[in-house]
């Protein structure tokens, strides 16, 4: 994140471009855009020092709606573009908007490599489990069996678990939120912006047109409390409408326990520690279970993992600085080289 400049007092409006968002009515992207615009003023970075980079997809249209610098790139390539931009210009605050197709299908290689290199990017992954822009083909996060225009007999490709993939690839930050999470989403975006390194925020985004209600099992008001768990650092894993359910580890296996049934207390519960990669790995796997399946685990929302590690651009700039510790090279030196010789 770029250093905060506390003198500016900007509002969400200052970050809105003059282009009208062209997403469908009811699309989750609208709400996310709103939160992004609303969190930027808090960073104290003025619009000319911010860049939004994206690939192709409905979600990748986001840069057009920001009054910042921006690249609406090509499909899957937002991350290398953002990495190049950040490496060349570490002073900028660089954000990436991408979709489950853009980031995880065609862009999967850049995704894992960016995560391990850890440039300071804020990556907002709009996961609607579908290809929206191309009208409804399944994506690498679509659930098994989903019937779409390209899977008329049902999806047979085992989907990615984005959290596991991020942690497996060596990422330093993974958080999850819903498109409609409002202030909570905003707080997660702020955490992501503050994290130095590649922050990956997976947003459960609804596409009412091609994959409506894909997240309803978690997002619907009546069941949300039972099927999600909002993580808080150093707090036990508690959830449920009454916050009377918790997660305990039995051996290596996390299980749901009922605090109202005797024999278990909060003290037995898993304490969330976002810095513990082993915990995070198991937490990530919660998403492998479906809400209504046997042994279902609630979906963790919030920051699953955060690790402090040098950013790519800091390491790179450091090497340049070291090379110049006795002064930068001049053009004349460059042209002359180390092995010149004189003919008299």
């Amino acid at each position, binding site marked *: 994140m770029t250093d905060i400049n506390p003198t500016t007092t900007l509002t969400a409006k200052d970050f809105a471009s003059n282009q009208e968002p062209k997403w469908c009515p009811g699309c989750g992207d609208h709400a996310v855009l709103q939160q992004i615009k609303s969190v930027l003023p808090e960073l104290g970075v003025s619009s000319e020092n911010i860049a939004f980079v994206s690939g192709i997809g409905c979600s990748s249209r986001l840069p057009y709606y920001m009054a910042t610098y921006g690249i609406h790139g090509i499909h899957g*390539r937002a991350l290398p573009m953002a990495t190049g931009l950040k490496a*060349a210009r570490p002073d900028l605050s660089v954000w990436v908007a991408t979709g489950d197709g853009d980031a995880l299908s065609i862009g999967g290689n850049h995704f894992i490599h960016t995560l391990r290199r850890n440039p300071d990017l804020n990556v907002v992954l709009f996961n609607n489990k579908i290809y929206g822009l191309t009208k409804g083909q399944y994506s690498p996060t679509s659930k098994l069996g989903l019937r779409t225009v390209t899977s008329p007999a049902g999806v047979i490709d085992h989907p990615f678990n984005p959290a596991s993939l991020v942690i497996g690839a060596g990422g330093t930050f993974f958080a999850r939120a819903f498109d409609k999470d409002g202030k909570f989403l905003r707080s997660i975006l702020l955490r992501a912006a503050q994290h130095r390194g590649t922050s990956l925020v997976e947003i459960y985004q609804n596409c009412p047109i091609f994959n409506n209600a894909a997240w309803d099992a978690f997002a619907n008001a009546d069941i949300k409390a039972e099927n999600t768990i909002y993580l808080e650092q150093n707090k036990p894993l508690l959830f449920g409408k009454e916050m009377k359910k918790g997660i305990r580890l039995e051996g290596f296996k996390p299980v749901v326990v009922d605090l109202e049934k005797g024999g278990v207390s909060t003290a037995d519960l898993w304490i969330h520690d976002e810095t513990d990669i082993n915990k995070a790995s198991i937490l990530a796997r919660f998403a492998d279970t479906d809400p209504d399946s046997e042994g279902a685990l609630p979906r963790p929302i919030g920051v699953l993992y955060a690790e402090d590690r040098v950013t790519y651009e800091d390491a790179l700039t450091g090497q340049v600085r070291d090379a110049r510790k006795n002064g930068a090279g001049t053009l004349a030196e460059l*042209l002359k080289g180390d092995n010149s010789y004189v003919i*008299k």
Partner: protein
Amino acid sequence: MTDSKTTTKAVNVTSKASVSVLFAGDSGDGMQLTGTQFANTVAVRGSELNTFPNFPSEIRAPAGTISGVSGFQLQFGSKPVYTPGALFDVMIAMNSAALKANLKNLHQGGIIIAGTDGFDEKKLKLAGYPAGVNPLEDGSLSNYTVFPVPVQQLTREALKDSGLSSREVDRCKNMFILGLLYWLYNLPYEGTVEMLKSKFSKKPLIADANIKAVTAGYFFGDETEIFANIGRFDIPPEKEHGTYRRVTGNEAAAIALAAAAKKSGLELFLGSYPITPATEILQNLAKMKKWGAKTFQAEDEIAGICSSIGAAFGGALAATNTSGPGFALKTEALGLAVIMEIPLVVINVQRGGPSTGLPTKPEQSDLFMAMYGRHGEAPLPVVAASSPVDCFYTTYEAARLAVEHMTPVICLTDGYLALSSEPWAVESPDNLAEIKPRIHAPRKPEDPPYLPYKRDENLVRSWAIPGTKGLEHRIGGLEKQNETGNVSHDPDNHELMTKLRAEKIARIADTIPLQTLDNGAAKADLLVLGWGSSYGAIKTAVAQAIEKGYSVAHAHLRYINPFPKNLREILGSYKQVLIPENNNGQLVHIIRDTFLIEPVGFSKVKGLPFTEMEILAKITDLIKEL
């Protein structure tokens, strides 16, 4: 220690204008080091020079076999030499495979210095000679001047007190041969002694042994009688005084990028992925952090070019380098750079195709791809370098065009230029062309809105660099409205933008130099039109043809898109145009299409550069037909 001037015997020294030498041996024989040392020695002495290493294509081909032969070719002379020499005057054959592989390229009557230990029964068999056949003994080399030298034995003798293992001793063989060659060409060995001292400063025994081997080789020349007939040779150095360095094409290209960044006041960013024979550009720039060069070894070629597009958007002088397969992978992103109209230098060091093809061999077969290899109407400038040193000037020019015309530019070199070297008179910074980025000044709130796609008289848009107040804008791969750069699906606008993008590139012809003739008269029977690394062979051949009285001229293209404005006129001034290419005639097609003329194509698709003899023979044929 005696120095190389104190030779004792009075041997006849013949003066020669130029000599070409091949050092050839097994991969393990150290021929690259030997050749490089010899090259340095003649260069520093003031000779003109051209070198080319000839590695085996296989990862590690089996020792002693033909495919394991490693060679280092060089030509040096009093007057400029433009190729490493197509036929060698002298061949060092450290083993029988080296001889067998290269004999066809030795001049009739040429000298062979053969390391006899490389011709024992086992090695002859590995080289594929029938049992019982030894070319050194069966008279088959009677057209050449053969000097069998028991290099291994002599080296062992010289180093018997060195305290080294016999393997270590044998590894000094190449220095023995080097010393002998110094003697033969009347060259000082002191430079090599210095190099050995510093290279092995931590291994004094090794240093000593190598130095002893060099001097032993040198004085062997003095003492042996075998060279009595031919004597020694001298190639008097005539290079103008000045400061020089020796560069390969890949080194020169790397320097050019860093220099263009310095000159333009931009920061250099190279996003790249290793690929033979382009990797050295990345490697060289990785060492130029002192000049602020940032290199990014990406996960693949797509990330390489895309990171550069990001950096270019951020205001860097951005480049990417690659070879055929990687170039193919970059085509989608190149289209993005075209429509974004951002500066980007793409260096394609061509190699034998299609597909993985002949990865270590040069070819000129990516011209079509450079010109036409993007979806949609996506024209961009294409330039091509003609010599190792020209890799500097052409790459620099590519950077200038990119920055000043806000466009990706493709700079074509090839595996031959990449690894060849020649001396380069060190450039003064002031001699380099100015590069003026079209950077837009900050905008005040009361100023009219920033128009990213507003163009100047050359149809070039301005560069609005992030961090600049008031110029925030979003652009990408969708068609843009003229001037505003907003997404537009308007039919007429699309046609307008398509034409504007094409016209912008076409107008570069107004600003680049006119095509010049490299040699020959402005009107003549035959024009040899070349591009790329065939320069040296064509130049040499045309000079010879003119000497023979043929009515021939030579023009060599740096600018392939757009062509220089006077090219049509030049082509029209000759009865016939000959276009030699290391491909199936790609420039021929472009010339036919552009000028509706029927040039004669001359293809060589063997993973090998043209030789001057081939070109000369073709010229001769054509002249006779005219």
